[in-house]
């Protein structure tokens, strides 16, 4: 489980914001903050969905492979969902 109580170092924060934006656009991560605990769970499950789609190791964490893929040029159509 992730804890956001400790302030993230700025690079982590950038990566976190990149991931949030990516997952919101391509994997239907709900917009807005719905309470810290629930959004952490939603984020982790969306990371897993994205890792499964790209055949990465499904960890639910923002590991290097996952972040590197999120930074690649790509099509703007969502990968899943309506």
């Amino acid at each position, binding site marked *: 489980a992730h804890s956001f109580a400790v302030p993230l170092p700025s690079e982590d924060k950038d990566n976190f914001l990149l991931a949030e934006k990516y997952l919101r656009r*391509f994997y239907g991560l709900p917009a807005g903050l719905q309470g810290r605990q629930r959004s952490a769970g939603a984020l982790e499950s969306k990371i897993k969905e994205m890792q499964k*789609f*790209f*055949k*990465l*190791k499904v960890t639910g964490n923002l*590991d*290097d*492979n996952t972040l590197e*893929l999120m930074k*690649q*040029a*790509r*099509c*703007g*159509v969502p*990968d899943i969902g*309506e």
Partner: protein
Amino acid sequence: YNHFPRHLKWQNNEVTFRIVNYTPDLKKADVDRAVRKALNVWSDVTPLIFKKLHQGNADIMISFGSMEHGDHNPFDGPNGLLAHAYPPGQGIGGDTHFDEDEHWTKDSSAYNLFIVAAHELGHALGMSHSTDPGALMYPVYSYTTGYPLAEDDIEGIQALYGPNPNPKKVKPKPDAPNKCDPMLSFDAVTELRGETIIFKDRFYWRLHPQMPEPEQTMIKSTWPSIPNKVDAAYENPEKDVVIIFSGIRMWALNGYNLVDGYPKYIHKLGLPKKIRKIDAAVYIRDTGKTLLFADEDYWSYDEATGTMDSGYPRAIEDDFPGMDDEIDAAAYHYGYLYFFHEQMQYEYSYNSRKVIRIMRTNSILNC
């Protein structure tokens, strides 16, 4: 492959399209040609016919725009999002938008308009994103040459519209190899700055010591100028160079970059002219020699002097007891040579001069 929910598709096989505006990056005729060629990719394998309109509302309206461009689905400036398209339907359905903040080209120097258009028009016809990294409908951009559709793409679009009644001769790309396929063999294995790179068909897996899950990528998306098929590869860590062999040519890579002056002929290493292909290559860090394997023989190349050692070729089975078959790939780690041949890999101990372990080739990929 995937379709959009409810398998959205055009109900009529004649689909109209219109190019509403143009990018200044390319001549108008180049944009027209890229779009027509992209549409033909899909019409070649389906009954679909595309009719160009020069005014009015077409099924597929094609345009270039930056940031917010009228559909409340903004682009994001250079890189990142390149384009998007909407599934078949009325109104915005089928419409295809390209990010004008990208640089559009006809080659690999920036984003190739034909490749991106072929992908987006796949969406405009009802295809969603594919999980196959070799498919045109894979969401991440990669530059490729030759016929753009993979078998996966053709299967997907024909599941919506059926095949072309007058099929054109097409040569789809094979789908990406499955790392845990028990019949998997490797084309080449090399180290690259602490990672292990395994080549198979037009793909490679990248193994990082701390990342047990290998990442599969297309060769051309990382090294556009080397061939889609690698026969052998080795790293010379002292020079921070990876040498790639394909046919009678070799390329030198320094990370992502091609070293000037390459490709060169493999015979420059001192191999006889009759050798047309190298099966495997491996750098032995302890001796500073690179072993080059072809058929039943091998050569020893001295990296320091840049010359082939005398007394070669020698028979593999004479110097490596237990290895009496051809070799697909070879790697060297801490005094052990790993010979890969078809579905098996042989761990050979230099010190005891014998094969001490036999494993499946893809055990290195955690299978």
